[in-house]
């Protein structure tokens, strides 16, 4: 029977919800055991949270000063060492997982499956290619370990477990390089609801016109308890920071409700919202391609629609 290792994602304080989503993919593999490893420094709370996820056998806590920031060059050799004892090594397909896992896989002499969206068999998976315009079945040959990133928009978070899994502190005797240094992280969207886990998302595109005008998107989002997203054009134009970009090269999201204002619906943008429950599009151009995928479409000027919507929602 096989053993799975999941690489936890966290910011030093909180476990990222993507970890529980990877755990839910792992459940489909019916393995003998599934461990989560938490790399960090003074992050016992994160390990506690990981130990509370359904289906987890053990949490390995690898604390050392060098692990304080999630640098691929530092974490990958430690993951590659741990991988000796596992058949599967899984990480979320977030910028964290995409950065670190291929480096670990190559150190272990293995390939990697990116963006697992479905498990077909023990070594067989589905993944999207061409910005989600095609889905391919991939199979890892016998005798190789499976390194994979899990497409978080394809999985619901695994529920909480009835009992906490045991936490074991581990020390890995691996020499770490000194050639890479973390300097700082500038967070763009501050205290707003997290785009990747929010139930509702309100997004703006080039049609919003300016950073100033984006205020109406933010206030509508506040009213709905929604996170705020944007098209690449809106980010490039400097209306909002990069971490709000939705799409092929931004975030792939799966909220219950997605409302797009002034977004035309380029395939690279649609890639990011295909898994949304309900897509609402407001655009003044009746021919805008976004209407081809929208569940509810409204042809109109966003500067008229948003104030009316504000009023209709009360408050």
């Amino acid at each position, binding site marked *: 029977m096989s053993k799975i290792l999941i690489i936890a994602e966290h910011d030093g304080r909180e476990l990222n919800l993507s970890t529980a989503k990877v755990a839910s993919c792992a459940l489909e593999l019916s393995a003998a055991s599934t461990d989560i490893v938490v790399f960090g420094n003074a992050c016992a709370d994160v390990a506690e949270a990981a130990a509370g996820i359904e289906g987890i056998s053990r949490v390995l806590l690898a604390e050392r000063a060098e692990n304080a920031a999630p640098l691929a060059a530092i974490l990958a050799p430690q993951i590659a060492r741990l991988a000796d004892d596992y058949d599967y090594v899984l990480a979320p397909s977030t910028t964290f997982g995409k950065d670190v896992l291929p480096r670990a896989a190559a150190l272990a002499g293995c390939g990697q499956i990116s963006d697992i969206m479905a498990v077909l068999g023990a070594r067989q998976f589905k993944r999207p290619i061409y910005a989600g315009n095609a889905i391919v079945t991939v199979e890892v040959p016998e005798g190789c370990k499976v390194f994979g990133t899990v497409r978080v928009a394809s999985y619901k978070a695994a529920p909480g477990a009835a009992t906490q899994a045991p936490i074991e502190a581990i020390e890995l005797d691996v020499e770490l390089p000194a050639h890479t240094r973390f300097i700082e992280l500038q967070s763009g969207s501050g205290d707003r609801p997290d785009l990747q886990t929010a139930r509702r998302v309100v997004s703006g595109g080039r049609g919003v016109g300016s950073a100033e005008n984006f205020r109406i998107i933010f206030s509508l989002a506040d009213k709905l308890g929604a996170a705020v997203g944007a098209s690449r054009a809106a980010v490039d134009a400097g209306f909002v920071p990069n971490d709000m970009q939705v799409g092929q090269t931004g975030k792939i999201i799966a909220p219950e409700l997605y409302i797009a204002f002034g977004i035309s619906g380029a395939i690279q943008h649609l890639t990011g919202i295909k898994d949304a429950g309900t897509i609402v599009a407001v655009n003044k151009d009746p021919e805008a391609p976004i209407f081809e995928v929208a569940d*509810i479409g409204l042809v109109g000027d966003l500067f008229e629609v948003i104030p009316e919507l504000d009023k209709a929602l009360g408050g």
Partner: protein
Amino acid sequence: MQKILVCLKRVVDYNVRIRVKPDGSGVVTDGVKMSINPFDEIALEEALRIRERGDAEEVIVLSIGNSDWQQQLRTGLAMGADRAILVETPEPVQPLAAARVIRAIVEREQPELVILGKQAIDDDCNQTGQMLAALWDRPQATFASKVELQDGKARVTREVDAGLELIEVELPAVITTDLRLNEPRYVKLPDIMKAKKKPLERLPVAELGVDVEPACRESNFEAPAARSRGIMVSDVNELVAALRDRGLLD
């Protein structure tokens, strides 16, 4: 620094609407417009700017593909690269194999910087740069939106889910590009003429002696489940009613 190596992948142009072959054996690429992967154009632009600032002597472009790929390498030369290397393989290579080939060329050319795209827009793997950095045992700065070079180091701003991360890496290093790093220049006609005279070396992959076996088998390509066209509403009241109907407002 002496040399920058830039990897160029030939991919279906990003404006082409992708169609899956009816027999599920792949996507339609016959007669379809092919281009340099957009992220790789950005990689090349960055390398050219570094050279034009006087911080590098030579920019080499590298592709691993069949003889058709010369087209994209010529475009790279027309943009301003000094020379090109085509490692020829009849079969497309997967990221680990590509990383091994690039590693072999790195051994030969000894660049101080290798710049790749963060992902190829055909396989969307986002792996090759990271794997190269592992095999080379050098730093990686992925998803770069700003690169500053000084004293044998690179300060790189990375686009991560939480915002912008700044890291510092010692050279030699691997950098992978995000879209906002720069805007690639257009190729001018005289440059296309000049590019024809620039060196383009063709090297059979077998000569490098690296393992290029695919790490995973691909089969059964399908079109994604289509979202059905929804309803159009004519005003905000109807919109709110439709949302309430679906239980989406509380």
